[in-house]
């Protein structure tokens, strides 16, 4: 069934992503900013509160089957539009906060339907987004805002991993460990505002705890032995976990200044190495679910995944050797990897449509909510 609203929201998310990547290329000096343009200032908000929040908001709305929840991705998308057009960054922050508030109400509804630890982690992640957006609206962008946004993605993904891994019938050790890891990450966010070094170290400890939980209890360790899409997803997940471990160690052992190459390494390890690896893992499943289009997985999907991780490693190396040229080339390669990935997905969907055009048509499905 063709669902125009979903396609509009996905197009808005794609526009936010493209603009966010372009802003990133401006920041690292790969492209010259247009005269008078402030786009480069909005790289972070475009990538997280516009792209990720729109995508995740849409996914939540489809999952819960609640129409009112579509307001969340719509407001996130509108926030991105305001940033791209340079209309009003302040209004963009307010819209993004409203979107996160609605997403929060959705998380509470989901928890009401199934009160469980993984639902609590998902809800905590959404409230980290809300907190980050409110901080942005009140005080403008800051490293603390970026780290609250990181908390959003970390906790959401952690919750999803526990949800999927329930099939393994975890015992109290797993649940206790997971709860402590999530609580440590969540607690580090407000502490960051009062004492950034203490907050960073606590965040690092939380990341290490979460990584260890993922290594020991996540189902990806088992599904990586399977074939095709299932293995690809597990590989992408496990690759993302290595960046989580790296960031955790970096923060817990040394703390990191909230500026310079260390800060760049922390943010991009989480947002590119971890979060985008999760996107690469789940997109071949989520996009068909949102669009009703067939999107067969192809082995070529490994190429952008490898490019993403290699370019991130190069970016971190550039900080260690203080090479701005390497950083720019690495950042541009990461952007290229993301674009290549989505181009391959689009190509796969088009090919499938050409080969089997009838597959997009279907009868009604009764949804007993």
């Amino acid at each position, binding site marked *: 069934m063709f669902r125009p609203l979903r396609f509009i929201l996905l197009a808005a998310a794609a526009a936010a992503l493209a603009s966010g990547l372009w802003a990133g290329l401006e920041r690292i000096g790969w492209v010259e900013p247009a005269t008078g343009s402030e786009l480069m200032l909005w790289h972070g908000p475009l990538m997280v509160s516009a792209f990720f929040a729109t995508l995740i908001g849409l996914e939540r709305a489809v*999952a819960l089957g609640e129409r009112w929840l579509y307001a969340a991705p719509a407001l996130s998308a509108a926030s991105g539009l305001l940033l791209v057009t340079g209309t009003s960054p302040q209004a963009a922050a307010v819209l993004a906060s409203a979107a996160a508030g609605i997403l929060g109400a959705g998380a509470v509804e989901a928890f009401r339907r199934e009160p469980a630890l993984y639902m609590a982690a998902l809800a905590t992640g959404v409230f980290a987004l809300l907190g980050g957006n409110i901080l942005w609206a009140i005080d403008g962008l800051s490293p603390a805002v970026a780290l609250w946004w990181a908390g959003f993605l970390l906790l959401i993904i952690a919750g999803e991993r526990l*949800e999927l891994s329930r099939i393994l019938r975890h015992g109290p050790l797993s649940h206790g460990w997971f709860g402590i890891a999530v609580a440590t990450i969540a607690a580090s966010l407000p502490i960051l505002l009062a004492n950034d070094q203490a907050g960073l170290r606590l965040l690092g400890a939380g990341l290490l705890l979460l990584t260890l939980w993922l290594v020991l209890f996540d189902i990806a360790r088992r599904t990586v032995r399977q074939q095709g899409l299932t293995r690809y997803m597990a590989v992408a997940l496990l690759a993302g976990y290595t960046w989580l471990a790296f960031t955790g160690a970096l923060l817990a052992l040394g703390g990191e200044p909230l500026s310079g190459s260390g800060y760049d390494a922390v943010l991009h390890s989480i947002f590119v190495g971890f979060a985008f690896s999760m996107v690469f893992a789940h997109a071949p499943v989520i996009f068909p679910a949102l669009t009703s289009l067939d999107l067969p997985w192809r082995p070529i999907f490994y190429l952008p995944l490898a490019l993403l991780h290699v370019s991130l490693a190069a970016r971190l190396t550039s900080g260690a050797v203080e090479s701005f040229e390497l950083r720019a080339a690495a950042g541009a390669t990461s952007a290229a990897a993301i674009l290549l990935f989505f181009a391959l997905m689009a190509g796969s969907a088009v090919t499938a449509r050409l080969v089997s055009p009838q597959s997009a048509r279907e009868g009604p499905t009764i949804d007993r909510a």
Partner: protein
Amino acid sequence: MNWALELLQKMSARRTESGVGEAAAPDRFEGDAALLEQARQALATVDDPELGLNIVDLGLLYGLNATPELIEVEIGLTSPSCPLPEHIARQARAAVKGVVGGDIPVDVTINRKRRWTPDRVSPEARRLLGLS
């Protein structure tokens, strides 16, 4: 083909023993035994892509009513936060239509109320995951 119907009903009874919430309601398998078995086998080709396990082995098939006039399929979700219900429903419908032919309408119902538990996973799926 009565053996297939009996087998499905036995599996249903076993799976719901330790259920919670609406899981206490038994799974329903009714109708023409041959069609039931055909439909069940078709649904066993619909996978959860991340787990690499099919929806029958995952215990997501809550009901089947198969007659030469209509096939009704009731499937559940592993979680209320699962974003795949429509996708799985679409694949389930296509799979069943693929084996029974285009003349019999196939209705797929997504049951969001019934709570899934890992106890519904089949021994074969657990073996594939290296759990037994």
